[in-house]
């Protein structure tokens, strides 16, 4: 098993957001996490990546036989965890290439691999650029600065392509994309998908799942996974909305 989340509880600013998450992800699998706004999907993603602002109060996360919660954010990345941010951060003055070169070499160093020289790095990013149809000018610009929403999302997938994670968590990478951009992003992800990694996509929309076909679909609601199923669950949600799932679990809470 690549990832096992057991009874995870997490707070932000004293408020409990995650209230007992259980999730198992095997290598080679694609999981989709859906759920209404504010249900805790991004919180889960950020906790996986190690954002310090979230306080884990209970539960554990085993990743690749390690206690993930004990690792720093950078060590998680070096162990192969990647988060595509729902809202990628703009960093003026730091070029995409500089970020990626530093990141890649830090990861390689950690994994005991030799660092790439400038030439090797350039040819690597050239081939990865094609994957998400990013052009050179964007790649050499400051990280996400002045990028359109779609460009930012493609840039996240481009970074994923270069860093080749074992576990990629894509937080609403499809939101705000037109259908062409969606296709580019989804195709990129599909090319990166393999028997050696696993992908967790957080999404509101079934249309992404037409391209990236999940093995499992989970519904997160009020900090808990309230239902899991196969890809047909996503179709059902598309059709019926969340109310039929919300109602029973809300009543449970009242009771």
């Amino acid at each position, binding site marked *: 098993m690549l990832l096992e989340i057991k009874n995870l509880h997490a707070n932000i600013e004293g408020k409990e957001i995650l209230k007992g998450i259980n999730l198992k992800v095997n290598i080679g699998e694609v999981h989709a996490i859906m759920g209404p706004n504010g249900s805790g999907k991004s919180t889960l993603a950020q906790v996986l*990546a*190690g*954002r*310090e602002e979230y306080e884990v109060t209970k539960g554990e996360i085993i990743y690749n036989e390690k206690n993930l919660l004990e690792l*720093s*954010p*950078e060590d*998680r*990345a*070096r162990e192969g965890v*990647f*988060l595509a*941010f729902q809202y*990628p*951060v703009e*960093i*003026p*003055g*730091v070029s995409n290439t*500089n*970020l*990626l070169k*530093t*990141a*890649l070499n*830090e*990861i390689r160093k*950690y994994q005991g691999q030799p660092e790439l020289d400038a030439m090797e790095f350039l040819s690597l990013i050239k081939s990865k650029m094609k994957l998400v149809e990013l052009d050179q000018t964007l790649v050499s610009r*400051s*990280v996400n600065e002045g990028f359109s929403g779609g460009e930012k999302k493609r840039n996240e997938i481009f*970074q994923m392509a270069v*860093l080749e994670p074992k576990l990629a968590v894509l937080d609403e990478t499809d939101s705000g994309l037109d259908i062409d951009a969606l296709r580019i992003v989804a195709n990129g992800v599909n090319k990166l998908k393999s028997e050696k990694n696993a992908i967790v996509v957080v999404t509101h929309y079934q249309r992404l799942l037409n391209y990236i076909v999940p093995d499992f679909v989970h519904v997160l609601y009020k900090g808990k996974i309230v239902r899991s199923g196969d890809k047909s669950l996503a179709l059902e949600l598309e059709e019926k909305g969340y109310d039929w799932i919300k109602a029973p679990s809300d009543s449970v809470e009242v009771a």
Partner: protein
Amino acid sequence: MENTLDIKKIYLSHFADFEHSLNGGKSHPIHQLRKSAISNFSELQFPTTKEEEWKYTNISPLLKHSFEPAKRIFKDTEIKVNHYLFDKMEHSLIVFVNGFYSKELSKIKDLPRGVIIKSLADAIKEDHPIVNQHLGKYADFKNHIFTSLSSAFVQDGAFIYVPDGKVVEDPIHILFLTFAGKNKIFIQPRNLFVAGKNSQSAIIEHFASLAKDDIYFSNSVTEIVTEENAFLDHIKLQEESVQAFHIGRMDVHQERNSNFVSHLISFGADISRNDFNSRFNGEGGESMLNGLFLVEGNQLFDAHTLIDHAKPHCNSHEHYKGILTDSSRGVFNGKVIVRKDAQKTNAFQENNNIILSDNALVNTKPQLEIFADDVKCSHGATIGQLDNDAMFYLKSRGIGDDKAKAILIHAFASDVVRYIKVNPVRDYIEGILKSKFHEDQ
């Protein structure tokens, strides 16, 4: 330990010795400047934090030392200057060791006809008319004790004159090297740059210490005149000893349509104070002031800038940035005066600071005094930490904490450094930044 009064007496007695050593120099017109400056000095008191202009900069540590006037070092050829030169740069180099011109270490290139790069001492000796015309005219010493001191001890420094219409292609590198050792010395470089009509040139004033922690006092004054339509690019790079005191002043007098660019890159001293005053004396002038300072330990950096929009249709653009760690202090005071007749003025000012520790502190104060009504002026100041979201983003990509910090600090600094057009100087500064933050390890 001496009190302020005694310190003044000591400087006065040094002046008496200095005057005595001048012999024939006493009849020179410049000596009038010295004499009125020293009598002004004797009337003034060293500033305390009670004075508005020195509110956050307590200079009492400077007044605890009795500094001796620097003496000429005759074996200066043994000093290795290579370390302080900019790689791959064709340029004229004029070196001063402890404030004295070193002919041996300097290397002046073939220059366009009429262009002068030389020691001010020599120019005074030759009774150069440009020197007599301009020296002491812009750096008013009336209420400034340090400028009075500088003017009283006027002796050496760089004199640069670019006649009308001349373009000096290669940058002019002025290196002020201090070699204090155990002697607590004071050096007072005095510079005069006159850029003639339609001329173009780039000047680098570079202050460096041979030892990282020598104690000395550098009190420098630079007067700059840009005649009509002249273009002058000025870089001041300060790499003083962390125990030194650097009081620096620059006065720029800009005539019609002239364009002056100033970069101040400072790694501080124990206390460093930089006064920058510029005045638009004709319409259509442009000036850009870029500043970056990085201080650590107990260093204090203070920049006081004054841009005087005395004439209409001038643009000034000022951007200072500070990076502070440990218990260091920063002061930025940016004054812009737009006089009654200075319509259509554009004045932009921004000061951003990053504080990397709980004990560092910045005092920033914009001061806009606007007397004209048809103007565009803006100012802003920020003091903050590194952006948490950006830090987390970098770390989530596998970049360690120190390196992520270094990358963000460097990006913050580069925002100033990238405007330096003289590439080798920019590379040199980038190199210092890189090694300061161990980014390359």
